[in-house]
């Protein structure tokens, strides 16, 4: 065992990369849940984004087109969820599960010919001088652009929900769809837009996994990342800034356990690999133990179907 081989600078730097897929998916899901919709299909949308982005990037040689296609793929799949829950008024939980099961199958189907291929490398931020500052340079200024896109997205969502009229309407729909409907807001329209935003974010998150983090395509490569994103939204009690905290915390755990595996700690690999999932459970327990605090902040109409009788 050689713990000194773990460099704190690299650890923090790789933590930010590791957290990005989950962060993207979680911030999208936060908007969806704020509109009162519980989409459990994050895992499915993520993996569709992963393969759609991978295929497009390999096909065109451009990671940017890959990311665009990933967002489009995730949004397209989420449209199925929107159609079923908003027009066919199906159960949110069951439909979300269906989305995940279908997404895992479809992605495996789409990805058959892409196993073992390397995707084109995406652009890294490279500012002269600043990126070369010791410690701060590698930690803050020399990442893949997706890391910054994710951070910008968190800030944008925070600003949108807190300071814009659109954000206020979205929150109103999520708190009480009947009241929002009575005020003349288009509940279904708002929710569909939120669902598609969530889908696009999850798709981007998937592509961040297959094009940047891994970068490779393997079947079922999300391995629960979508579910962890869902857990992070609960952990964050539906606050964007805390989604960032949660995602970086989980990124940290994931990276640390990988580093410990590489350093040859005497704990068996399998038990280290369990740790992100176990920590998710522990965090969920701690959060829900202060039930009143967390529950107060959950959107009141979360997961309830809306049907305007008139």
């Amino acid at each position, binding site marked *: 065992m050689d713990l000194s081989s773990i460099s704190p600078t690299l650890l923090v730097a790789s933590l930010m990369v590791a957290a990005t897929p989950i962060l993207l998916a979680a911030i999208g899901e936060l908007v969806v849940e704020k509109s009162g919709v519980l989409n*459990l299909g994050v895992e499915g949308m993520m993996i569709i984004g992963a393969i759609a982005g991978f295929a497009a990037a390999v096909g065109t040689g451009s990671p940017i087109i890959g990311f665009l296609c990933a967002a489009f793929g995730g949004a397209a799949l989420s449209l*199925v969820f929107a*159609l*079923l829950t908003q027009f*066919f*008024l*199906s*159960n949110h*939980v*069951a*439909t979300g*599960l*269906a989305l995940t*099961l*279908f*997404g*895992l*199958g*479809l992605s*495996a*189907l789409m990805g*058959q010919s892409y196993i073992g291929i390397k995707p084109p490398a995406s652009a890294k931020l490279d500012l002269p001088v600043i990126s070369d500052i010791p410690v701060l340079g590698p930690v803050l200024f020399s990442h893949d652009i997706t890391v910054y896109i994710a951070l910008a997205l968190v800030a944008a969502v925070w600003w949108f929900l807190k300071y814009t009229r659109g954000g206020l309407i979205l929150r109103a729909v999520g708190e009480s769809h009947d009241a929002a409907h009575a005020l003349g807001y288009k509940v279904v329209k708002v929710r569909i837009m939120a669902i598609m935003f969530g889908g696009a974010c999850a798709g981007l998150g998937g592509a961040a996994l297959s094009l940047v983090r891994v970068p490779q395509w393997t*079947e079922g490569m999300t*391995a*629960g990342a979508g*579910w*962890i994103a*869902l*857990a992070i939204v*609960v952990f964050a009690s539906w606050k964007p800034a805390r989604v960032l905290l949660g995602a970086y915390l989980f990124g940290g755990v994931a990276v640390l356990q990988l580093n410990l595996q590489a350093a040859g700690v005497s704990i*068996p690999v*399998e*038990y280290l*690999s*369990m740790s992100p*999932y*176990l920590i*998710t*459970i522990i965090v*969920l*327990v701690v959060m*829900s*133990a202060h*039930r009143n605090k967390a*529950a107060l902040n959950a959107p009141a109409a979360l997961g309830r179907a809306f*049907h305007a*009788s*008139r």
Partner: protein
Amino acid sequence: MLRLEKRPNPSKTWAYMAPVLAVFATMIGGGIMFAALGKDPFEAIRTIFYDPLFSEFAWYYRPQLLVKGAPLIMIAIGLSMGFRAGIWNIGAEGQYIIGAICGAGVALAVYPAQSAFIFPAMIFFGALGGFFWAMIPAVLKTKFGTNEILVSLMLVYVAEQLLASMSLGLLKNPEGFGFPGSRNLQQYASAHNAELWTGTGIHMGVMFAFISVIFAYVLLARHQMGFHIRLTGESPKAAKFAGVNPKRLVVYCLGFSGALAGLAGMFEVSGPSGQISIDFNVGYGFTAIIVAFLGRLHPIGILLAGLLMALTYIGGEIAQSSLGLPSAAIQAFQGMLLFFLLALDMLTNFKLKLASAGSPP
């Protein structure tokens, strides 16, 4: 313009019709998918739904229907109880794995002793393993209000890692020349979940699957617990006034489904699969979710849906070897089935009405 009108009571006709129509819609949707993959859609659908039952080799595939259907039915029966009451155990795959590890662990611990008590002990510990694995989300939900969906699902990944650790370490076959995986229980008479009648595919797990269907049917129709489950699902407020203890319901529903999933895993590992290996589980725990919904969360419906889903597994395997249809296509096909079912389900609760020009939108 079409508009929806809520029915005062769910339509019985549509409750039966929706799954049947969903299967047909999936055949069409799946056919389009297969055509997009460059396969003849009619041949693919025939291979999946017709060949396992009536082709020249059907004598081999028909018993497989029971072998593959039994775990699906058993797990889905357990899940349906919770789903009815709004308790979402979606970690059956994990409970299945733990049940298999515990059941096989008992046998491997006493190997090579032969005794009539070994198999019953395996059944007991298989169920117990699944039960305790499901108790983790149950207790966390009742004590802390933790979301059981996320916890039970996270535990699937934990169970998979535990399975890897077991098949590479503790339960590894010492005479296996270093290959991962445990001893083959099919070669260990006292622990082998053998066919009860040769050539029928019926093993002890199939019997348990049938028993669980009957048990669930009686529980729901005749027992107070079943009444509480149905009441909570249909009207949580009414259930509260009727004195239903929601926490006890969570423990019962999760425990019941966990034990059944554990049993299914144990029967699988001691019979058709034979050994604990890294990938002996093939996702029955997730497919069972589709089975439960397709069967309308009703025991008899689940029995039929489980057999149908087993058919798509077997047909999918045949299509894989004869048509070169990728195995993932079947997974997408099964997911599609659930989509169509959920969409058509709307007709159970709502009426489609043509809105006339003068009526409000």
